[in-house]
């Protein structure tokens, strides 16, 4: 049997999802697949297009894993257009003259921006906002401009306005309707949004019908003339007044077109030709087309299912509710937001002080939720959406759902149990409650696991509170107790222990064990409590009562190596080192025969030091001005920096200066796991700061702060917490971030994993750190200030304390050294000898050795 020939036209978000879904559900090597991608790059995240301006790299937005199409043997025609189709012979003709045969054809041609036929709209100062190429053109134009206008006050228009503001031009929004976001908001909600946006310096002009754009401005290049006789001067114009289905090819080949445009499809996403499917924004189902990505994804799934013979799977319309953040303002719209249903009633809450507006639209009998509008506070969005979608009965007083806590009434929470199995919890990835329940029953019991396995909560993240409550309800139902106990000796989580130690001012492990634990303790709780005692009270790590708690690394202030020797790594804050200090380091390395290597942390490590040599080695280094680098500790390791504006011709800020400052500020503070910082002097990001626990990137206006990135085994791209900070604010935020992590993380949890388990994600972290939602920031800053004040170099303290030094001898009853430490030459230096190199004669029981030398 010959292979099925499949052609997909369009590689936008939906076209790509179709292929992904297909790869997941069937063996694509049994098909011949060709994909047309008109743009010069494969699918990227159009929803977050404006973030292109903050990152400046198209790769960041890409949705395609490197090598995905090659790996699956899919023929990707980049930059090539399908120009005509012969349905009778089933052939696609391409812009390069190619002819490709198909058995099944998928149209995923998307949409194009609607540009109103205004006189002058073809000027070189007029743009649309849809592709990365559009953004590049806008950015180039903005460089020579002072002002810009976005035509269109809808969702996309405001997104574009955010981009213009980020480019630093005076930004205007011109809207034809009397309010912003006419589709999603009622008048009062639109006004509230307008008030907030204008306060941010964006000028909003509603009820404006643009008649003409002419290059006749006095203070700017162009002037816009409106029907009411008013005028607005601007350097350039971006049209974002809606989209239209891209159905040109379909019209050409005479497929049925819906009355308002778009390729007409049935419930299986088939067009009037059964061998041709249409999905996404180019398709029209029931005379409706959908300009959101979630319905497009759903269509992709349905079309794949149908191709594979599953006729159960159907497209049955889509909910157009949305929760977004536009120009920093939270906006939510659910169902019938404008209250158009006959007989419906409303409940409204408005707080002009905090610029919050909420409205519920309920059915005539007060029983069902029909719609909602949320501006300024969208925390109720998830629950309200579920109430509407699943037609759940409303509580007796529906207004209690949107009143703030200080109003006194208990807010009725939506129990996960009240939702049907089919309830869609994550609409970005179409994850139902049933799917989450199944993942739980398969043994995935943490939020991070659920996110990884089902994909829920990894899109916009708005559903995470609900995912968590479904997870908890499922765990409770199956009788699984989630234990966050640190170990068998303490029935408390690390966070709880932290609070007990703080509040009761507990200073020793024994006191804590007696009051709250049982037994002797173990290799988990002992170092954990040692770390908390150090974070809380700044106790010197070598206090005699603490010695028994620490891993060998903290006790001998070096990182133990496989042969029992230690590393010696002095601090080189920000990666700086003087030639004089470097020569002492070289002399010490030569004298003690230490293997020398530049580490991954922009500093120099000396390896193979026996522990009885450590105090003398460090005395020499400290005399030369070095101090400990805490390379052995669960603490800040270093701040990696690029050269920055002092030398680099691209740099916009002094990254080395800042890196050195923060490394010195936070050094020595014990954290739940090690931490790494990075500081880049411009957006080229040479310090790779976005792969660090804390990443700082210079901008023209200050510093952008990224948190919870990671390299290593499971790389994680850091999230942007705050932008354009001055140095003082930045330090404050870092203080709060560090201490909040120290207080709340699980044992040995890096910031990246801590973040993945944080309900509410980056928004929540921002609320805590920037907005002081928990009211603890003054305390967090005071805690850090105390630790910074009390800092001392652990090695300096150790070599100055005679009583510490006896511990460094290898034997307690002999001056001999460990003769098992043996080196052999390698690449002009040396390495530890293997067992067989040490004992060439041993032939007997080498089973154990073989197991470890592999």
């Amino acid at each position, binding site marked *: 049997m010959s292979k099925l020939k499949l052609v997909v036209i369009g590689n936008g978000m939906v076209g790509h999802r179709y292929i992904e879904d297909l790869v997941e559900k069937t063996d694509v090597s049994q098909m011949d697949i060709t994909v047309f991608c008109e743009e010069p790059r494969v699918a990227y995240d159009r929803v977050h297009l404006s973030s292109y301006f903050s990152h400046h790299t198209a790769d960041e937005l890409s949705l395609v894993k490197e090598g995905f199409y090659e790996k699956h043997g899919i023929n990707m025609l980049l930059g090539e257009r399908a120009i005509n189709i012969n349905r009778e012979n089933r052939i696609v003709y391409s812009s390069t003259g190619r002819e490709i045969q198909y058995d099944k054809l998928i149209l995923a041609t998307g949409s194009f921006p609607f540009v109103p036929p205004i006189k002058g709209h073809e000027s070189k100062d007029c743009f649309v906002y849809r592709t990365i190429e559009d953004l590049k053109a806008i950015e180039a134009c903005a460089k020579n401009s002072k002002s810009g206008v976005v035509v269109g006050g809808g969702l996309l228009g405001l997104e574009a306005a955010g981009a213009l503001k980020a480019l630093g031009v005076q930004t205007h929004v011109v809207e034809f309707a009397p309010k912003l976001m006419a589709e999603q908001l009622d008048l009062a909600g639109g006004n509230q949004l307008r008030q907030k946006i204008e306060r941010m310096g964006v000028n909003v002009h509603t009820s404006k019908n643009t008649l003409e754009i002419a290059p006749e401005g006095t203070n700017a290049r162009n002037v816009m003339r409106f029907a009411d006789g008013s005028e607005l001067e601007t350097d350039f114009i971006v049209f974002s007044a809606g989209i239209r289905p891209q159905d040109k090819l379909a019209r050409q080949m005479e497929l049925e077109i819906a009355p308002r445009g778009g390729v007409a499809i049935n419930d299986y996403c088939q067009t009037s030709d059964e061998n041709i499917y249409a999905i996404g924004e180019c398709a029209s189902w029931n005379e409706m087309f959908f300009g959101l990505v979630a319905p497009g994804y759903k269509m992709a799934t349905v079309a794949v299912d149908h191709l594979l013979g599953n006729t159960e799977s159907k497209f049955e319309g889509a909910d157009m509710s949305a929760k977004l953040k536009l120009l920093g303002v939270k906006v939510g719209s659910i169902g019938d937001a404008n209250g158009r249903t006959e007989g419906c009633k409303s409940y409204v809450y408005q707080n002009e002080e905090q610029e919050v507006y909420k409205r519920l639209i309920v059915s005539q009998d007060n029983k069902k939720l029909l719609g909602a509008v949320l501006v300024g506070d969208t925390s109720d969005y998830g629950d309200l959406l579920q109430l509407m979608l699943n037609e759940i009965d409303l509580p007796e007083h529906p207004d209690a759902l949107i009143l703030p806590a200080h109003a006194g009434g208990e807010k009725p929470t939506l129990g996960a149990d009240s939702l049907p199995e089919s309830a869609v919890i994550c609409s970005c990835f179409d994850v139902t409650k049933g799917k989450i329940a199944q993942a739980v029953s398969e043994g995935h019991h943490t939020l991070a696991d659920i996110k990884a396995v089902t994909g829920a909560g990894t899109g916009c993240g708005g559903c995470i509170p609900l995912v968590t409550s479904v997870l908890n309800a499922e765990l409770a139902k199956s009788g699984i107790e989630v234990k966050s106990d640190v170990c*068998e*000796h303490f029935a408390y989580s690390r966070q709880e222990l932290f609070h007990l130690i703080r509040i009761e001012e507990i200073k020793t492990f024994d006191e804590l064990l007696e009051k709250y634990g049982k*037994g*002797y*303790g*173990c*290799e*988990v709780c*002992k*170092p954990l409590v040692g770390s908390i005692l150090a974070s809380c009270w700044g106790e010197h790590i070598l206090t*005699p009562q603490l*010695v*028994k*708690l*620490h*891993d*060998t*690394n903290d*006790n*001998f202030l070096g990182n*133990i190596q*496989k*042969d*029992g020797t230690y590393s010696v790594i002095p601090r080189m804050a920000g990666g700086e080192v003087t030639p004089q200090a470097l020569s002492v380091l070289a002399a010490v390395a030569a004298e003690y025969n230490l293997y020398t290597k530049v580490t991954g942390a922009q500093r120099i490590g000396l390896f193979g030091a026996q522990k009885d040599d450590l105090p003398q080695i460090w005395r020499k280094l400290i005399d030369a001005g070095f101090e400990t680098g805490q390379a052995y500790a669960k603490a800040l390791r270093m701040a990696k920096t690029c050269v920055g504006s002092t030398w680099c011709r691209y740099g916009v800020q002094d990254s080395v200066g800042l890196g050195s400052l923060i490394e010195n500020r936070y050094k020595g503070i014990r954290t739940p796991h090690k931490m790494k910082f990075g500081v880049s002097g411009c957006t080229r990001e040479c310090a790779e700061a976005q792969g660090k626990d804390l990443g700082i990137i210079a901008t023209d206006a200050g510093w952008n702060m990224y948190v919870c990135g990671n390299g290593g085994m499971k790389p994680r791209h850091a999230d942007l917490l705050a932008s354009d900070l001055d140095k003082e604010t930045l330090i404050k935020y870092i203080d709060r971030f560090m201490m909040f992590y120290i207080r709340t993380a699980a044992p040995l949890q890096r910031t990246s994993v801590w973040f993945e388990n944080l309900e509410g994600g980056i928004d929540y972290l921002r609320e805590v750190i920037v907005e002081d939602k928990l009211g603890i920031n003054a305390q967090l800053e005071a805690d850090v200030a105390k630790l910074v004040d009390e800092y001392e170099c652990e090695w300096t303290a150790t070599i100055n304390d005679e009583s510490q030094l006896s*511990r460094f001898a*290898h*034997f*307690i*009853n*002999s001056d*001999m050294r*460990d003769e*098992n430490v043996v080196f052999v030459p390698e690449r002009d230096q040396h390495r530890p000898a293997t*067992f067989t190199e040490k004992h060439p004669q041993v032939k007997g029981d080498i*089973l*154990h*050795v073989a*197991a*470890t030398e592999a």
Partner: protein
Amino acid sequence: MSFEKICQISDIIPGTGVCALVNGEQVALFRPTAEEQVFAISNTDPFYQSNVLSRGLICQHKDELWVASPLKKQRFNLVTGVCMEDESFSVKAYQARVTANGDVEVAA
């Protein structure tokens, strides 16, 4: 088999271990608490053939005392030398005692 004097009990910080040289063998000596009680097993981590066990953390599991290797955290029983993770990697145990005048002795 005779007991050899190693050190004074006060030389070992409660809750920690030290390494002793006994008849050419490296022995890890542990003092789990402030009480005058010690345990002795081989100092060699059998997974790496490195002499490090005296530098591990003393821990309690299954109501018995163990030491967790400082290299990869496998646990060794302080009384028997048995390795919790894999019995085929168990190490030699020694008899150890504290005399009335505070001498720590190991049998070799």
